[in-house]
């Protein structure tokens, strides 16, 4: 196989796509998750069902949607339901296998903050809020978290838990009646997974990334798998699909990284 040039963001998209299994019903977010799902559907997971929190079921977008409420998600979908029905009879009832989430901060237990930086009542930065993230983190069969790998984004503890990860460890999560839990954190440097206590560790490093680099960019003393291997690099086909079909204008994957 010949070496392929790719950006850090493209590596993240490809790693995220590979977390999806053929036949999964996935609740997709806009941006990187959207690219990852569309890439998976065009490669190893043609039977992927893409569901959006705007209520579209099995969307089949002809082009990359601008938002999760884009008309291309309704045109050609199998079904469109009101928001409330999407959250009750699909998500809460257990019809969603996997949810994609991001956030301003993600901690070692996979808790996500998309609410505020600083104090809730006197915020340094007011973020958009939960949207559907809290219920996705609580009801999807598993969640995949995507974030650029930076120390401020991966603190030991988030300022605000918008969406629960392994709160109180894996046992704590189960006792609270929460379904699933985070399966992986996909960054532009590594793939992190969760140990038996529910704490994130580095499973694989993306090609060319060192352990030291990841330690520096993580807000806690992160553990590494005994044999931390290299993430399988993107293939030429995957990169071509991203650049030529999925994000031809480089809206999400550009930026010259």
């Amino acid at each position, binding site marked *: 196989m010949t070496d392929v040039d790719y950006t850090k963001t493209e590596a993240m998209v490809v790693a995220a796509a590979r977390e999806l299994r053929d036949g999964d019903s996935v609740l997709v977010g806009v941006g990187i998750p959207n690219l990852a799902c569309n890439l998976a559907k065009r490669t190893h997971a043609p039977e992927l069902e893409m569901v959006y929190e705007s209520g579209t079921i099995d969307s089949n977008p002809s082009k990359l949607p601008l938002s999760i409420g884009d008309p291309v998600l309704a045109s050609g979908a199998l079904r469109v339901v009101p928001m409330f029905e999407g959250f009750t009879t699909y998500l809460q009832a257990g019809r969603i296998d996997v949810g994609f989430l991001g956030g301003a901060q993600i901690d070692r237990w996979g808790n996500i903050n998309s609410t505020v930086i600083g104090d809730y009542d006197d915020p340094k930065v007011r973020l958009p809020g939960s949207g559907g993230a809290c219920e996705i983190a609580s009801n999807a069969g598993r969640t995949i978290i995507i974030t650029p790998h930076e120390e401020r984004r991966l603190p030991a503890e988030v300022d605000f838990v*918008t969406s629960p990860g392994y709160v109180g460890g894996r046992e704590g999560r189960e006792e609270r009646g929460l379904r699933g839990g985070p399966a992986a954190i996909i960054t532009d440097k590594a793939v992190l997974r969760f140990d038996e206590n529910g704490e994130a560790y580095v499973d694989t490093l993306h090609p060319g990334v060192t352990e030291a680099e990841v330690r520096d960019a993580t807000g806690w003393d992160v553990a590494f798998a005994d044999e931390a291997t290299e993430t399988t690099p993107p293939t030429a086909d995957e990169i071509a699909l991203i650049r030529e079909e999925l994000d031809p204008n480089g809206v999400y994957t550009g930026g010259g990284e």
Partner: protein
Amino acid sequence: MTTLTTTSGAVSEAIGDGDTVYLAGFTHLIPFATGHEMIRAGLEDLHLVRATPDLVYDQLIAAGCASKVTFSWAGNPGVGSLQAFRRAVEDGVPNPIEIDEYSHYGLTARLAAGARNLPFMPVRTFEGSDLPAHSDNIRRVEDPFGDDDVYAVPPLNPDVAVVRAQRADENGNAHLWGISGEIADAAMAAETVILSVEELVDEDVIRSDPNRTAFTGRDVDFVVEEPYGSHPSYAQGYYDRDNEAYLEWAEASQTHESVQEWLETWVYGVDSRDEYLERLGAKRLLELQPKHDYAEPVDMGRY
């Protein structure tokens, strides 16, 4: 009794200072024309509610119309943050606003309870989240049939809902397709409803496809025909989202001063939606026109 009127007529009749108002829609069919008229009317002290406050709420906040916002995701969809909302929450500019925050499920469950006259709606969310600690409206209730507790939210019955649909007859029987968000529940939960549509059609058109009716005229107080009334958001089958406008807002809303300039041009500087559309220009509107893609007609049968 439903009144056929204009956007300004509906706003002056239906909405007053201090009202709780729900401008519904999830990215699709956002009532921009009505929102701009509310700004021109100089409404104050409004409690704005919506799962996804976007540009139109940012504009109402920037114009000083709001004192409280109830929401679950406040952002410029697909673009970034809402700058005016942030200035109000972080710095109290142009005035401080109170916030009441949920997740999407939590807030749409409140509307669903309101539309169905339920005392509360149980929801499997909020467990393990910090959100309940910051709201009096997210509480635990005991399961009367089992051992577990569950979170619950109270009903929401706005004073006024402003909703849009592609078409309706003059009695307010509305056909809606594409992403419907929380539009029907908002219309069924609110005390007073303003329905604004792309086009008025005969009642026969509505009755030819009753499964497509989102709500009927009995729940509607004012009907307005306002073509392009959702620009720069979209109306499925009529026009696409004007993404340039969303990017322009991200720029224009950078400072309180630049926002005022934008409002001067696009809201205060025009006296109606027609003048707004003239300012936009036919070329820009034509570029948003999708090609036709009709659904296969259904046969209701003649019985």
